[in-house]
């Protein structure tokens, strides 16, 4: 694939290196001349000095034949514009933007960016997974469908302990797909499955129903 990377900072550099190793054709656009020289000396002549938000620079970079553009500068607004110019002026099929403000995920999606990667969110998700007391863990996002797979632990004091699944008031956009007991025994829940203390529940839900699901399973 021909992949254009906007921003030759640390992330852009290591990303280029990894993608080159995978056999892709890479071009990096970087404003700073020192960074530009560094990348060229380390990785070969794959870096051009220029502003990746400018149509003229993107034109010279052959953006018209690019399969993908990844914008990883340190500024959300620059990443947005680089992706939009690539998408709407050069019809690049896939655009990926790095974002710092996690709230920009929804905004970028609405503005036509195919994928956003938020370092803040990635770190947050890891913390949630590492901190066992956290009631709800995001395991996976099914992006195109707007659904996510989450894990919820049932504490012994929860009001739902001893209840059957059908007695829970689950939100309609949520489905319990797996329950793992304290003895590490997984079972597929039915309407008559009884919730036990220390159960780990794996569920599929829409992000909007996440809070309602948590309340239904653990109490407020």
């Amino acid at each position: 694939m021909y992949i254009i990377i906007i921003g030759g900072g640390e992330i852009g550099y290591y990303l280029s290196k990894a993608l080159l190793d995978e056999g892709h054709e890479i071009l990096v656009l970087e404003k700073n001349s020192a960074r530009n020289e560094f990348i060229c000396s380390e990785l070969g002549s794959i870096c051009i000095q220029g502003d990746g938000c400018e149509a003229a620079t993107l034109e010279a970079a052959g953006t018209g034949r690019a399969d993908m553009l990844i914008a990883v500068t340190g500024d959300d607004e620059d990443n947005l514009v680089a992706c939009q110019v690539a998408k709407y002026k050069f019809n690049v099929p896939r655009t990926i933007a790095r974002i710092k403000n996690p709230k920009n995920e929804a905004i970028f999606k609405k503005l036509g960016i195919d994928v956003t990667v938020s370092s803040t969110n990635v770190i947050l998700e890891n913390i949630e997974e590492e901190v066992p007391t956290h009631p709800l863990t995001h395991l996976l996002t099914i992006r195109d469908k707007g659904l996510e797979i989450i894990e919820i632990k049932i504490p012994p004091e929860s009001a739902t302990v001893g209840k059957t699944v059908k007695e829970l008031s689950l939100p309609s956009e949520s489905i319990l797909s797996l329950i793992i007991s304290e003895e590490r025994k997984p079972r597929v829940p039915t309407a008559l499955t009884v919730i036990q203390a220390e159960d780990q529940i794996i569920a599929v839900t829409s992000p909007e129903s996440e809070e309602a699901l948590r309340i239904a399973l653990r109490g407020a």
Partner: protein
Amino acid sequence: MKVVIMGCGRVGAQLAALLDSEGHKVAILDTDDYSFQRLPSAFSGTALLGNGTDEDILKRAGIEEADVFVAVTQGDNRNVMAAQIAKHMFNVPKVICRIYDPLRRELYSTLGLEAFSPTTIFAQILKEKIES
């Protein structure tokens, strides 16, 4: 009218002062509070420190009830991003945006933003002056 202006440079400050003196409800945003010194002492609107590409800051500035949003910071991309947030996320009825780069201005105009390039406009004025 309720107007939110992003960028309290010379243009932003002057526009804010003009609209304020005509009785409009103005909120002006900037990331540098020193720039608020450009506002006249009689300015009765709100001056708010913060980045207008952050939707929480925009909400604080009253974007949800705004009739007009104007983006006039020094950064084209910041203006473009904030203007699109105002238009597409908050459905502000009138959104105006400054884009210095004429090519970028052209692209975003075709994408439906009301955008002006001072570069093009000023070059045109100069050309007319020279030819007159």
